[in-house]
């Protein structure tokens, strides 16, 4: 199949993919919520790491478990679980990040009835020696939890394989970004987003193959001449709304970078294959730019954003995060101030849920692109 079509299909029906994968391989599917999930360990345990994003369906059941002032990612995911839309999961893992995910873990454990449940209680800071040592022990424990929970033995050899394949995926995704940057127009924003959505749930070996084919295809494709478009960097929370890319494109912009946990943060930084695997996994998290729920100095994300804007010669930044999201809400003003100081225009969208905000988004986006 045309790799792009494959990615589009999977991104639209990730659950169907997981179900088919399960039937096909007889393997187990482990749901997870965050880029701080060490997917390598899940892959090494022979299971499919499946990032839960919420299908965006109407929320009714989750209302009896979570107040309305909780972000739609957390509420929507719980809704899917309670409604039986995630019945293919054999369990779920919860890296400790924001307060909402923290409580989601409890509510999930008490109410959803999936077999395997693991909390990965990571340190909140990633810039001290004791925190890094602690993180190593947390990942070791998670490895044991997986072995016990899934009834497998997770050998070093399998872990090494998993690290290798996940690194390959990261390199390919990075190449894709690079292609997009240097050869504008070879892949549309919506398609790129579809690739990422699919990458969060696909069997990593299949993913690597499909990505390799796609990269070859695109490298050979003719480049369209749209260098004149405004270059945009996204910053903020995960975006489970592909249309934002289309919205930007239709308004005459082009997304050249992002710091989404479902985007660049997903592939940035490789795991050192020559080191002891758990140490190496820890090291990657330590070096990668943090998510706002983690701490590595007080300017970490702002500095990173500025770097990316400059590196990609971006014309403006669009901040994007879910309503009720504390970590992103707290970071926004200082990051905006850092941009202001450098004269980089920016705009912020707080997204309530996937559908309701699109029209408004379009209008404001057009106005913003016109202005810069």
């Amino acid at each position: 199949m045309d790799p792009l079509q494959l990615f589009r299909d999977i991104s639209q029906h990730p659950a169907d993919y997981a179900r088919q994968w399960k039937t096909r391989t007889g393997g187990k599917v482990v749901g997870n919520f965050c880029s701080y999930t060490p997917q390598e360990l899940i892959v090494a345990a022979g299971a499919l790491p499946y990032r839960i994003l919420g299908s965006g369906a109407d929320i009714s059941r989750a209302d009896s478990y979570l107040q309305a002032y909780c972000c739609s990612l957390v509420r929507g995911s719980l809704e899917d679980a309670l409604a039986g839309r995630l019945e293919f999961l054999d369990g779920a893992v919860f890296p400790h990040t924001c307060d909402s995910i923290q409580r989601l873990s409890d509510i999930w454990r008490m109410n959803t009835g999936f077999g395997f449940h693991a909390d990965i209680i990571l340190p909140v800071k990633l810039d001290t020696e004791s925190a890094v040592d602690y993180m190593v022990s947390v990942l070791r424990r998670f490895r044991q939890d997986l072995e016990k929970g899934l009834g497998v033995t997770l050998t070093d050899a399998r872990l090494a394989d998993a690290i290798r394949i996940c690194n390959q995926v990261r390199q390919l995704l990075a190449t894709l970004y690079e292609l997009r940057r240097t050869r504008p127009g070879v892949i549309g924003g919506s398609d790129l987003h579809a690739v990422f959505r699919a990458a969060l749930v696909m069997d990593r070996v299949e993913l690597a193959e499909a990505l390799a084919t796609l990269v070859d295809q695109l490298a050979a494709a003719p480049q369209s001449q749209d260098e004149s478009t405004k270059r945009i960097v996204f910053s903020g929370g995960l975006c489970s709304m592909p249309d934002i890319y289309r919205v930007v494109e239709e308004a005459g912009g082009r997304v050249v970078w992002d710091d989404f946990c479902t985007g660049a943060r997903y592939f940035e930084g490789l795991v050192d294959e020559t080191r002891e695997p758990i140490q190496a996994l820890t090291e990657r998290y330590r070096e990668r730019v943090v998510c706002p729920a983690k701490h590595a100095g007080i300017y970490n994300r702002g500095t990173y954003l500025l770097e990316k804007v400059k590196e990609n010669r971006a014309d403006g930044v669009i901040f994007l995060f879910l309503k009720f999201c504390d970590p992103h809400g707290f970071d926004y003003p200082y990051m905006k101030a850092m941009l202001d100081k450098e004269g980089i225009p920016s705009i912020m969208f707080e997204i309530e849920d996937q559908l309701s905000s699109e029209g408004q988004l379009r209008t404001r986006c057009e106005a913003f692109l016109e202005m810069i």
Partner: protein
Amino acid sequence: MPSDEKIIDPDKERRKIKCDSKMREIMAQYYMEAKTPKEQRGKPIAWITSGGPVEPLHAMDVIPIYPENYGAMIGASKMGVELCERAEEMGYPRDLCSYARADIASATVNGGPIGGLPEPDMLICCNNICGTVLKWYEVQARYYNVPLFILDTPITHTEFNDEMRRYVTRQSEEYIRFLEQVCGKKFDYDRMKVVGDLSIRGQELWQEILDTTMNRPAPMTCFDAFFHLAMIVTLRGTQTAVDYYEMLLAEMKERVAQGIGMLPNEKYRLVWDNLPIWYRLRWLSNKFIERSACLVADTYTSGWTSWMPFVDRSDFLGFLGESYARIFLNSGTDIMADNIIRMVKKYDADGVVFHSNRSCKPYSFGQYDIQRIIQKKLGIPTLMIEADMVDERSFSESQIETRIDAFIEML
């Protein structure tokens, strides 16, 4: 907070807690010292989170300042909305914790009842209460450009393990090194022992005070506890707090001996969950009193003694990390439910009132489950009030009153 009555009603007079004025005096003095210009007071100032380990600061002669306590004061003096709105103008979304919003705004305009907090020389952030404090203290670390120490306390979803223990113990040592560096002097371990003892003594006294409401009629309600709490938060580890609480405890015991209750007629006994609604304390208190319902206990004020089982008297510092990590808010929802069940039994309560607090996600998410667990295990009625502790815009008076009425009828 009680305020002066115009017409003196002898019965009301008799029920008033006499220590109140002493408490105000001590708190005023504490803030006065902190607000004295630095050259005169000499001591450095640390801003610290409400659940943070304050004892080493006292041992180092550092004045601890609690932005959260100030948030409560801002709320109680109904200055919350204005400051929250100011924070929103600065770009902070309305859905963030209102303590944080009020403090961040107050810092820029010297706002609130005492015209702003004294500037910090350092920031101490312990995330045992929430992830919000981390982000909030990052904001202040950028604003004041002062060193920030983070005591990272992994949550006990289901168990507290050895890796966590090792991690928090190491951080206690890092905390001491941090203080030595910022204060430019050696840590005083002997003094730490004294402070540690005082801290434990203060917490014991505070728990004893809270426990006097096991008596019928209860000599005080949780609304009084909300007021007297300031001392265990801000002056924990000092002789002042111990002396004051001894005095308060004596008064409570005396009230019990004389059969003086806070309510003229105590018919129902209730437990409160979550933070107080500061700007409506008096209103809410009256609503319950009018309906002969006495709020005998709450999860909030007892939070400052919830680490007691993990404290070691002989080695306070050694167990500091663990005891601070294991407070009830830093644990799984089911553990929090058990805590409430224990309280209902201990204080012989007839129902539970939950404050679903928009500001505080870690405290509020999970309350629906706790509600169900309580109904299932104890079969007593519960009430859910939707509000916010400081931001009055989230308060609907008529709706809450109707709910209280319906709830009282179920008792």
